[in-house]
């Protein structure tokens, strides 16, 4: 039942039918998968470019990063896929119209510290949790 139907807009070679045809196709799948697979992308939020250097003393900005990419069957390639993401994928394959694929989202987040002035020229040093994406995975 998993391979019963194929969505018209999914012309990438990662459907279960094609994946099961043989090793050649699996190789094709892997090569395209590498380009679009869920992974971390670099994104720098610059406080300096926002024109905030008069009140933010440090840092000048931070590498926030973001996650983007496909979480497609099979999830073996996605080393950070959660166990539930595998179940989610299977249910999606059985009912693609109603059940979404797992999401590409952060699996590891780190904190940053920001040093800034308030309106009274007092200085605040604050830790902000979960600001930097260190790793992405399928959830």
């Amino acid at each position, binding site marked *: 039942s998993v391979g019963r139907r194929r969505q018209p807009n999914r012309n990438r070679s990662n459907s279960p039918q094609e994946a099961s045809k043989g090793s050649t196709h699996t190789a094709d799948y892997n090569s395209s998968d590498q380009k679009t697979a869920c992974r971390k992308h670099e994104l720098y939020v610059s406080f300096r470019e926002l024109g905030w250097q008069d009140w933010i*003393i440090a840092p000048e900005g931070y590498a926030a990063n973001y996650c983007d990419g496909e979480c497609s069957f099979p999830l073996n390639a996605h080393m950070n896929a959660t166990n539930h993401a595998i179940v989610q994928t299977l249910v999606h394959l059985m009912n693609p119209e109603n059940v979404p694929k797992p999401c590409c989202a952060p699996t590891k987040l780190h904190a940053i510290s920001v040093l800034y*002035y308030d309106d*009274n*020229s*007092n*200085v605040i*040093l*604050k830790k902000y949790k979960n600001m930097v994406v260190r790793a992405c995975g399928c959830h």
Partner: protein
Amino acid sequence: GSSSVLDGSELQPNFMHRRLRTQEKREMQKEILSILGLNHRPRPHLNSGKYNSAPLFMLDLYNSMSTEEKSDVDQYRSLFTTTRPALASLHDAEFLHDSDMVMSFVNSVENDRELSPQRRHHKEFKFNLSQIPEGEAITAAEFRIYKECVTRTFRNETFLLSVFQVVWEHPDRDADLFLLDTRRLWAAEEGWLEFDITATSNFWVMSPHHNLGLQISVETSSGWNINPKEAGLVGRDGALEKQPFMVAFFKVSEVRTRTAR
């Protein structure tokens, strides 16, 4: 354009991107301010120089935090003993380790008031604690004042420095003071003096109308009151990097959720 948050150079080549419109940029700024827990962009008044003692102290703490991603106190210890113990001490490193936020407060007293003859040498200090974010509880607070060496005038002299909390002010007589701490100082001594004002700061936060500031007085060993400046204590007219200030360490006391805007 070039000042947009989404800088093309940081993105993958196949990522379709565009420059943010002015309104979008404003919205983006609002969103980032919201992440930082701020309602608006602060507008500090930095007339007396950007880097006086309080920001320098905070920068010391910041540098110690940013060079570590480690978490145990021993690592803070080694960091503070091997790198730059100039302003921040081991004491501060331990507070820092347990804190979610640190805040420094500049002295907001601009002119000496006319005090009674008995207290003519007292110096006043006031700190504006009104902008402490909600949900933050003070775990430690210090009043810091710098002492310079004064051996020329007072060779081998010792001084008694007293720090008071101003409890109540009266229109017709001296304010009621509560003695917080005393310290004996050598004339030749030089460096930052730290006074624990944790209880006082918590009281000021709970009851802002009682925040009437601190006073200090200095006595010689023979019991004469002298101007703190004569004992080497740096006041408002001293070097910027030696200005007295207050620092408080906070722990988040409640779970903060961002509300929809």
